[in-house]
């Protein structure tokens, strides 16, 4: 008998009595008019720098003023207009070993924790938002939901081969519980929230 059969057989023989899935599926949320403020607060608590912008082109101006050279930036969001652009998928992420800034679009934000959903459909390669030194996410204010429950109701996580919630720059507190921002992923993170005036 294979291990598979052996395990399944023993699980079947030993499993506890039937217990139904919970039926309650609604949880308190954050009212729509408070979500933007809540998202900003949660993301800042997680170490993000949040900027409200009226349109995507303003992000390009911001990057130009702050980072001067377009070679430092890989931009994957249409309309930003500053930085290098990746026009084809990149098979080997190691090409980005020395990349300073990546501009990436997030399709959904979560107010309760400041997390933003990023999928490979919006990335030239999966490692991009991790390997860059500084991540800039772009998200539309309308795409901010209240809680994780609403996030999963709005998403089909299996529709993409890879997707991740990102809440702030990478961090660790493994040395004496001292919080250090910048572990293996980005050391800094901007979130540009596009909200037409």
């Amino acid at each position, binding site marked *: 008998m294979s291990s598979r059969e052996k395990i399944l057989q023993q699980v079947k023989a030993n499993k506890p009595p039937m217990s139904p899935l919970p039926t309650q599926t609604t949880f*308190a949320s954050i009212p729509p008019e408070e979500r933007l403020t809540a998202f900003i607060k949660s993301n800042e608590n997680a170490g993000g720098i949040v900027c409200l912008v009226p349109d995507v082109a303003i992000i390009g101006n911001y990057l130009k003023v702050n980072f001067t050279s377009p070679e430092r930036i890989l931009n994957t969001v249409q309309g930003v207009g500053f930085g290098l652009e990746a026009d084809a998928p990149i098979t080997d992420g190691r090409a980005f070993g020395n990349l300073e800034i990546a501009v990436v679009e997030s399709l959904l934000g979560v107010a309760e924790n400041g997390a933003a959903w990023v999928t490979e459909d919006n990335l030239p390669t999966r490692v991009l938002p991790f390997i860059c030194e500084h991540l800039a996410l772009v998200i539309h204010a309308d795409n901010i939901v209240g809680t994780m*429950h609403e996030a999963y109701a709005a998403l089909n996580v299996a529709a993409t081969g890879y997707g991740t919630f990102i809440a702030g720059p990478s961090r660790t507190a493994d040395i004496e519980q001292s919080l250090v921002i910048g572990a293996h992923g980005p050391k800094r993170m901007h979130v540009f929230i596009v909200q037409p005036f």
Partner: protein
Amino acid sequence: MSKAHNSVPDHAEAAAKFLQDQERANWHDKALWFNRQKRDVSANLIPDWELLRETASQIKDNVLANLDEYLVQFEQNALQNGIHVHWAADAAEHNEIVLQIIQEHGVGKLVKSKSMLTEECHLNEFLATQGIDIIDTDLGERIVQLAKEPPSHIVLPSIHKRKEEVGELFHQHLGTEKGASDPAYLTEAARVHLREKFLTADIAITGVNFAIAETGGFVVCTNEGNADMGVHLAKVHIACMGIEKIIPKAEHLGVFLRLLARSATGQPITTYSSHFHRPRAGQEMHLVLVDNGRSAHLGRKDFYNSLKCIRCGACINTCPVYRRSGGHSYHYAISGPIGAILAPNRDMREYADLPFASTLCGSCSNVCPVKIDIHNQLYQWRQVLAAEDYVPKTKKDGIQVMAKVLSSPTLYRVAGKSGRLMMRLLPGLANNKALNPWARQREMPQPPKETFRDWYKKNRPKDE
């Protein structure tokens, strides 16, 4: 003849050793309690916290009651997603499967993010016997790996180390400045050191936080980004998980991800919660489903619900015994209260001491996000271990005498009287720290002149 083990490490002995360094023990206690407090602040901000715990508990109950079906469903969907699925009956088979995948790809360089399962299976040690090096990439795990120690906490692997010790380790292994102990400086050094490992790794191993039956995908949570850095650069991803990590549907992630990080560190969510459903173009993705005693554990009526654990570490942070004894005193991959109820399922003889490493205060059960009755199980394990004769003779005899005395009013009175007399005449005997283990950390009380019973006899109203 007791079947109790005399040669294995004993929690009480190891704890006494840990406590010899008072300053460190106090620091450890406070650091863990700080985490517990952050958890409280975070939990209190969620009006539905108790409803979330109850929901999570019910989902996990449902998972365990249908585990075979969910496993088959998960496998089917994962295969359709292009993930290679392997089944391992025990630790040895898990290690062999991983070894075989590594060998098929011509060995090469390996990185691993945090996985308590691979700790449980002693994967690193096994691969070392095959001449294969593996680099742990979580900062805390890298620290203990360099120190040649196991993690002392499931979420904070190096919580027992002071920054000066980390500085010395990094000085020796990574060439940081002698005497430097600033956490930011040391973290930056580890980042540079591990970045090179990520960029050259051929195979990346990760654990799994949740695997979704409905979609055949899995979720890995980190703060450092090390799991993602590893797998997105390597040609091969091997994810290892215990069979109990299955959840039925993707929507259930909403419940668990809200609870996990808040319970662990007080963060509302980990920095990265990555959902893997298909390998990237040109990558190979493997998933190893490991039993290693879990299917047998499932059949233990009083103990199976400890398989609901999502490895947040909240019970560990709150435990007054863990905080003052350190994770290594539990001599098992998972320390603290949850480790103390999981370990005896693996080996009663080896881990007979662990369910006694508790005050049964119940704080662990109060913070558990999936409502495992941890303190009840600690208590029940004691009964099982005594019935099966795994308790040392001195402890067993003592408890039997006490049971006899407490169940007989006459004996109780005689024992009380003689005890008080002894304490008055020979106070040194009760306070002798060699003879009376209870007195080791305590001053014995002054014996009262009379008992309540004697006082009541004298003072009760005459008409009664």
